[in-house]
């Protein structure tokens, strides 16, 4: 679980991480990280899911850069990528086209994220 860029709103990422923890998952909380740090963490920790939490309005730019770097390293398809935060519904399709598996806006129930992860995790 990572917060790309400079955006002090931790709460969302923390709440979702806690929910996933309570669902029996191991969550590596990366906190504020730049694109390189996010990709490095995901690779070193060999995670199943990359969660990007953004409330700054920069979700399109950051997601694209994370995905491009994952592609560059040849590992994009190793991970399930989820994006959440204050994200306008009209941007959901763009994010999915980039390769994000699902997007979670305000009002999301954590149980839905858990369910999606369990059903879509790459084996």
């Amino acid at each position: 679980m990572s917060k790309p860029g400079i955006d002090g709103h931790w709460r969302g990422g923390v709440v979702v991480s806690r929910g996933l923890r309570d669902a029996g998952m191991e969550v590596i909380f990366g906190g504020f990280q730049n694109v390189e740090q996010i990709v490095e963490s995901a690779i070193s920790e060999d995670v199943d899911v990359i969660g990007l939490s953004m409330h700054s309005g920069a979700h399109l730019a950051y997601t694209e850069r994370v995905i491009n770097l994952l592609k560059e390293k040849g590992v994009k398809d190793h991970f399930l990528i989820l994006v959440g935060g204050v994200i306008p519904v009209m941007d959901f399709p763009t994010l999915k086209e980039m390769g994000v598996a699902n997007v979670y806006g305000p009002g999301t129930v954590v149980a839905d994220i858990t369910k999606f992860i369990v059903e879509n995790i790459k084996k």
Partner: protein
Amino acid sequence: MKRNYDIDVLIEKFKKKDKIALARLITLVENNPETTTNIFNNFDSSENDSYIIGITGSPGVGKSTLVNAFSKILLENGKSIGIISVDPTSPFTGGAFLGDRVRMTDISLHPNIFIRSLASRGYKGGISRAVFDISLLYEAFGMDFIIIETVGVGQSEFDIYNLAYTTIVIMVPGYGDSIQIQKAGIIEVGDIYVVNKKDLGGEDIVVQMEMMLDDATVQSGWRAPVVMTNSITGEGVDKLIEKILYHKEHLELSELLKEKKKHRFAYKIEELLSSKIGKVLESLISEDDLNKISNSVLQGKKFKIYDMVHDLFSNVKFEMKKSD
């Protein structure tokens, strides 16, 4: 989508120092211990020997931040480092919130470092079962130093002492009085003691610690030093590094390092044997047998518990297979 965990391919890349391969091999030894033999058969004893440093202390004393601070100095000196950071697994859900990496963002992109967070997964003693196996992988990868950070521990979780060559116990101001410091357990396993957060005081603890260490009658030829640090500003960290290297030299010159290495493996051998015996016992003693004992205990035979377990155990016929 199939994730790629082909051992032969990974080993080939691992030998070319590919961190992606290292990461995935760690996943295998952690999640599928049965693959470990197969993986380790690709290495031989001539592989690099890393120097293992253990960091332990209560939750929130600054372990990760201190690891970040002194790793920076080791990296500046051209050393390569493999970090294993353990955080606790929930006994209720099996989930975990691993937050050590947050403190290590500074060093995470350095080419000579590799950081892996681990959940304890029910393992007692402040570390996790996979820590030993991952330390061997780091050695094969060629790391100069391995740093193992335990979960935030209490008084009696000090398994780190069995794996590390230099164990660092971190305390903070407000630790307790001279009585706390006399207690056995965590407070006696340190090769180096750190009083972190020195901006909050802590001189009294240093004095108490120094007195306790002067009184200690166990002689290993090493008098553990006490260092004050502030892991955020980096104050005192150079002093800590100095003590670590000094202890390393002490072990090397006195041949104690050989003893430590032997102990590290003996500890794992014992654990592997108990685990094998445990599995055999599990397969030989049925749920019914256990239920019978528990029911008898509840039906007025609680003082026969030792007898009943002994009888059950003496009727077990052992037969070990190599696969167990």
